[in-house]
């Protein structure tokens, strides 16, 4: 049993939103794979639960001409099996392939992984690199925010108490972009990341025109490695440049020591994984 709670369930979005407007003290449950544990251990206290898991209008993967749209209630397993995601959102697909375990992927949703706001959330660095936006909806309006501006700290986001994350919007970019994603954990699956890294490089022959790099589990929120990006931009991709740029990551991260790894280890691994992810993008020396 978890602490006493009142449970409410709605099967359409507008009903859920109007409930939420009148009951801002509610906690939203989708897959519940993190929330149930947090409620049981009293890390999160809530009096009311709003179950949105049966809102079918938030379960879709749409392949449009300029954007992909992912409904917030799409499960991690559905993303893993999606050809659209595999073909056009490579780093996200790589992340969901190594995500928790089968049972959890079957239930956990992409919206939940984002809103839970774990610094180690595996879907977030790939979504930052893909320049995803989040649609936040309340009973009156919809607003769009960049995913990297969504997080305030561990478990904290800018979402208002009457809003639901309804959609993840990923712009389709031109084919000059290449991507990679690497997760380091103590084993392949079923483990929180010690460090995770997503990289996107826009190449013009051997020149790096643009770079976006994001890391998880090395700061209170997932972070952009802007110093590394700046170091790479408009430069020829050589192994010397990759070496030097990777070391810049120490300026972008602020890791802590916890049960999974020490801060020192995270710093060393961040440098190494950024380098490895960049090289994977460039296909030079693995």
């Amino acid at each position: 049993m978890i602490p006493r709670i009142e449970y409410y369930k709605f099967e359409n979005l507008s009903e859920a939103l109007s409930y939420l407007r009148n009951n801002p003290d509610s906690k939203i449950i989708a897959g519940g794979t993190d929330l149930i544990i947090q409620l049981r251990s009293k890390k999160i206290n809530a009096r009311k639960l709003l179950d949105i898991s049966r809102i079918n209008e938030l379960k879709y993967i749409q392949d449009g001409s300029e954007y992909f749209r992912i409904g917030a209630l799409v499960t991690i397993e559905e993303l893993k099996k999606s050809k659209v995601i595999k073909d056009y959102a490579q780093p996200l697909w790589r992340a969901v392939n190594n995500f928790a375990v089968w049972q959890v992927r079957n239930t956990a949703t992409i919206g939940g992984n984002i809103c839970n706001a774990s610094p180690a959330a595996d879907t977030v660095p790939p979504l930052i690199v893909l320049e995803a936006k989040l649609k936040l909806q309340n009973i009156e309006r919809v607003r769009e925010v960049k995913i990297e501006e969504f997080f305030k700290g561990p478990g904290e986001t800018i979402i208002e108490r009457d809003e639901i994350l309804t959609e993840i919007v990923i712009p389709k970019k031109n084919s000059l972009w290449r991507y990679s994603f690497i997760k380091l954990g103590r084993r392949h699956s079923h483990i929180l990341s010690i460090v995770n890294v997503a990289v996107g490089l826009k190449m013009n022959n051997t020149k790096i025109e643009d770079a976006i790099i994001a890391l998880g589990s090395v700061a209170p929120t997932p972070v952009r490695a802007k110093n590394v990006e700046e170091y790479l931009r408009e430069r020829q991709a050589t192994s010397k440049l990759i070496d030097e740029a990777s070391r810049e990551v120490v300026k972008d991260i602020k890791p802590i020591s916890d049960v999974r790894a020490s801060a020192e280890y995270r710093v060393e691994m961040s440098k190494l994984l950024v380098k490895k992810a960049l090289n994977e993008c460039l296909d030079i020396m693995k």
Partner: protein
Amino acid sequence: MGRWITLTVNGSKRRVEVKDNEILLDVLRDKLKVKSVKAACWRGECGLCSILLNGKLVKSCLVLAVEVDGSEILTVEGLARDGELAPIQRSFIEHGALQCGFCTPAFVLASHKLLEENPSASEDEIKESLSGIVCRCGTYYEIIEAIKDASKHYQVRKKV
């Protein structure tokens, strides 16, 4: 005091009264007496409470009972047909794929689902799919052999 929900458990309709904060695992074991579903870690780590919920493998310790009103649940009790064990169950016995037996219902159910979906699962796919269930006796080798051996029965079934 609570609310009544209806579940179809291993083919039979069951009505049960649950509180809003009750975990599905507790309701299955304590109220519906489905004892193959094991309670161990309570936080989604050991996988021994795995069930098939509307055809999907999930951990019943991470689900509230009220969430699944109207759902279909399959546990290892529902695998045998007319007193005849499912091929995966026979294979576990033939390979001695257990020691204490506590994790066996979860492994049997998960591998049954895996082979139904993917009867030609490779060893790597078997390992990945089952990585969310732990066996503290360490009978993984025998479990994997049992699954590989049982897969031919599921390949035949899929062709029919």
